[in-house]
């Protein structure tokens, strides 16, 4: 292995490394990586407890008004 070999390996490594970096975040986002055993697969909605309570109270109000 001489310098030329290493240069070629470096170029191939750079491109494949970029592609790996490109493909990991979506899998983390949907819980395929680092989601734990009981992680929900699918896009997370970003609904926190407070917001959930707000929506629940809205539905209660709707029930009461009927």
């Amino acid at each position, binding site marked *: 292995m001489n310098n030329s070999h290493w240069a070629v390996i470096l*170029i191939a490594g750079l491109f494949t490394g970029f592609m790996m970096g490109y*493909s990991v975040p*979506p899998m983390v986002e*949907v819980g*395929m990586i680092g989601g734990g055993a009981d992680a929900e697969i699918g896009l997370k909605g970003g609904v926190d407890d407070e917001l959930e309570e707000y929506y629940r109270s809205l539905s209660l109000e709707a029930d009461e008004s009927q």
Partner: protein
Amino acid sequence: MVGTDAVLVGGAHSDTQTANDVIKKRRWAYGVMAFFALVSIGTYAYNEYYIYLSVYLWFGLIYGMCLQYGRFCFSSAFRDLFAVGVPRMVVGIMIATVLFAFVGAIVTATGLSTFHSAPVSFHAVVAGFIFGIGMVFAGGCASGSLYKTGEGNGNALLVVLSISVTQALFVDVGGWTNKLVPASWRESALAKGLPESINVGDGWVDQYLAGYVWDQPVTTFAQMSGSSNETFAGAFLGNLLLGVVLPAAVLLIVVYIFWARRSHMRRREKEGLPAPTFLDELGGYWAMITANKRTAIAGLVLGIACGLHMFVIQGLRVKFGVRNAGTLLERMGFDFGISVNGTVFDPGYWYVTTQEAQWVGWTFQKLGTENMDNIFFGFVNGIPNPAINPADWMSLALIGGAAVMALLNNEFRFKKPTLELATWALIGGALMGIGSRLGLGCNVGAFFVRVSQGDPSGWLFGLGMIGGAYIGVRFFNWWTERKMAKQFAASDF
């Protein structure tokens, strides 16, 4: 004195020429790399979706580099073993398979694998047998011929052409061959309710696929042992240990007993050592495994690359919200050659022969032949333009990667085939093309990848391939002896 000077000058001249040759080849190697880099960057700048094709390109390039570096050829492996008793390459292939299986097990256990098992039945043995004879006749397997093409070998290019054309013709052959289809296959195929655009009643391969192959069970060693593929037990104990490591170890023991042991014992005899103990036998077994470091290193990198390839493709599928590259091609405005299911050939891992059939299928379609009415092209793989076909990017880059390595190793030579070799290349390539389509893959897709992922059909294909290679070598020995005897008889001596 003048003579000595002339020799010295001549020697210096040839040294300079050699040095210039090396520099020129190195520049070509960099040129190939620059071309692929520009294609990747340029297409990505034009449309983000092209990164999906670039993944195939760069992993294809790595496969090509590894194959050339390790001289990784299944045909050479079995020819060396059966003709001259040298097991080195067979051992290298088994090591690469085990290493890929290990990486594959990690990918599978984490649920990121793109692998799909193939139907398991006797058809895989028959397909492997035909393929095995073909690869010995051709002097190179499907992947070996690709990397040898990258080394400038014209004969290997002929093999690739023959495999490609034969497949494209074979999957569409109908007419009188329909009479050879068993009635049960025909009934089963027609009962599948395929779309009207697929003329399943006309075509031997269509009825073979829909009427026979699709009815066979699909399983893995993990599932056979009662586990799911996506669990630690299933991926590591079922697929890796039961499906790959143990059978590979047994196969290597057979190779050791029948081929490698003799030379090990001879060496011991020469050194005046006493009769071997079990530990000495183990030492000989280990020496056989570690004999070919270059192939083992290539196998290790191939294994890691194959696993990472699956991982990256899966990530991009999630990112773009697609299951197949056909959707991406349609989003980019390419709708020609997409199958009736909206798919194109997009295995998500290393494959060789299907894309070779596709580019010929695309050419035939452009020349006026209807190729989209058969299952292989019209229902499953499509025939997209080779310029935007992901798997074609992989094969072209594989040839490029092998060329880069050959140029840097000063092993690149343009070699014109002789008439005799060309004939064998065409015959062997044709047999490999038929075997590939019957087995749904070649030595890579139907053996290397399937075995590594714990698919029993891979071993069935391998069994047939070894049998076919053995018959092929025996035939070649007979042919060569007969030819030499004729030449000897015709000579004056």
